[in-house]
């Protein structure tokens, strides 16, 4: 398992996800691409599942499932994946730097 993905998520991270998802829902409702019933069903799903998510891996699984059911939420997953990739790149870059430093020394 990817050590980055298996790390526990903080309440702050979770709150950010709630916020992003809520804005996605509201955007959909305003644009008319998300019906009354869809917004209700998805709200039910988000509240039932996101509260139980503990690790980043679970968070990604949850967002993937959510995006499959209601595509308006896909952008939240994409955004998070982008951030995660940047984070992983940074970690790898640091590793490379460390190795280079070791070689130099």
């Amino acid at each position, binding site marked *: 398992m990817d050590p980055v993905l298996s790390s526990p998520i903080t309440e702050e991270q979770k709150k950010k996800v709630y916020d992003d998802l809520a804005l996605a829902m509201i955007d959909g409702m305003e*644009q008319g*691409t998300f*019906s009354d019933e869809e917004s209700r069903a998805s709200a039910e799903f988000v509240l039932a599942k996101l509260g139980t998510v503990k690790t980043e891996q679970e968070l990604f699984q949850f967002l993937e499932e959510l995006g499959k*059911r209601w595509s308006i939420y896909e952008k939240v997953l994409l955004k998070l994946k982008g951030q995660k990739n940047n984070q992983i790149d940074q970690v790898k870059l640091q590793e490379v730097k460390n190795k280079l430093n070791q070689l130099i020394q």
Partner: protein
Amino acid sequence: MAEVTVPRVEKITALSYGGESTVVVNEEMQEYAKELRRIAQEKGGEETFRARLQRREGGATFSTRESEILKSRSGGGAAGVNEEGKAFIRQDAQPEQRASYEENASLIERNSRVLNYLEILAEPSERQQEKFEALQKEGRVSTDDFSKLKEAALDNIVTELQTWFPMLGDPAMEQKNKRILVEDTIARDPKLRAKIAQKMAEARDFALKLPEVKGTDSLKQAEERKKAAEQTLQQNIREIAELLRDKGITTLNEATIGAILKSRANSSDAQIEIFRQILGIGPEEMQTTLTLLELPTQIAQAEDTLQKRFGTMTTAQIRLRPGGKDALDQIDQLKQRLVTMSGNPALGQHLRNFNTVIVPILTQGKTAENQAGVFEGGISSAYTARTTIGRAEREIAQIKSQSPDRERLNQQLTRLAEEGKLTNALESVLSDSIAEVLDERVVEIRSLEQKKQEQLMEDKAKENKEGVVAVMRNIDRAMRTNWVNYDEITRTKTIRALNIGNDVRFLAYYGRDEGLKRLFVRHSGFTDENGRTLDWKHINLETDLNADQKEQLDEAIKAQGETFISKLFADFFTSRGITDRTLGLKIFGKYALSYEGTLGDMTLKEHEWVLLEKNFGPSIDSALEQSREAKQVFTKLQKEGIAKTFKLKWLLWLLLILGVVGIGGGMLASKGTGSLG
């Protein structure tokens, strides 16, 4: 109001019903989105989702808070709601009124119980007890035990669901297992709650428009008049008692004043009795005191009359006029009486007491506008209220004693007949809601499958496999027309019961592989080398098909086999749910329904079920393994020590393919879930 094209499930559903392809997004929705944005900014995303859940479903809906009002609309006009907000049927209600009330009240209880439970279930598990307690505080649930409410509600759903899934009636399956199955499947479908609420709202609206029974209105009005007057009387008594207390009189409390007002014929007598008791004297002494009090007034009046009659004449002149002597003598007598009485020491004391104790009471609150003051005004108002109470009581007794006249009887019968319609509506709330949820889910799933099929055919066409595409097109058409056919032009849905029953039986006897091959050959359009249609039941599948046909058959089965089986069984079970009673359901108002064959054509013998188990058991296992939700249900059941019986698995698979496993119809987007591989 803006019209927005919605390229999602609603559109597909609407189209499949032959409806419009646009969804109207109204200003209310836009406004609500703004409101949610405000909540998101102020309280964050989680609270925004909670706010969204708490909002009533769009349009007319029903809250179980309205249950008691709804109950009070049954009973042929003999029911009402008491001060605590609870519905009741009058003691003197006739048997048919009582029967109508009790039947509808029981159905309302049942439907409200299910609705309450589904409302609780929609909450995350850690908040369910809290939600239950909130409903309890509002008086919406009668039990103080959540598990009892849950069991009763689930039992109600299980009973209704048996129409579609007879295996739920299997006595070998324990009730608690059935409950678990229902709880984790259809009960979690938000559509179900919305449908029940919507149908209860319709029942409520119907109930509110029920024709009134005139006689009962008069009774109600008389009872209301009586109640209002009783409140006024009590208020007057309180005010009089308060006035006396303010003046230092503690011997007369509210009960005594009430008794006086009740026993005396008029307000004047009541006032005198109150004064007598305050002064603490006997009735005769009171009378004498009053006489003494009135003497100066009488003298003044007599002198006034004399003056008007005789003008400026002297006493001597008056005596000479006719009647003059009598008038003068009367005044003398009155004056003499005043002198004599005033000389009586006891009477003098009473008079003084009257002036010091009673007069301040009588003058309290007297103004130019309010000549009566607090005391006399209160007594007068109390007597008016007493008269009103008496009249209302006589009216109530009269209404209750008279046998209903013909007109009233007719009104009552009309009302009861209409209440019978309400009974039917209330009775079918659960079954209609389940039927609609299943029906809509089937349409949604089928629409998605249809798209998938088209994509598969396009892929094969790109590979230049025209032969395979031709077979697939034929199979696709067969799936849409052979068992349940929906004609979009005439909006007619035809249930081909005999075809469905025959194909299910065929698969039971021939098994999945051979059965599918033969059924596919039937629709493939394959011919032998002489151009004759192949005898799909009897051909040798190894030797009677050429190499191309074998390849086309294999590819078509690979692409469409699982969909074919899923659709056949979904049509089989949903069509079995269409009974004489459900034929009248509202959903079928969306399209005409015809039936080829009978329900009996779809009945399987016990050994045919056994064959189905043998031939499809492993496939169902595999399909259920692919579904996370299905596995969760099984894990729960296993914790209860329940074996995965075939019927249980079969039932769960059916719910899975109908898209009612998981929250919000998770089947819609989870590819492959529930398919028989």
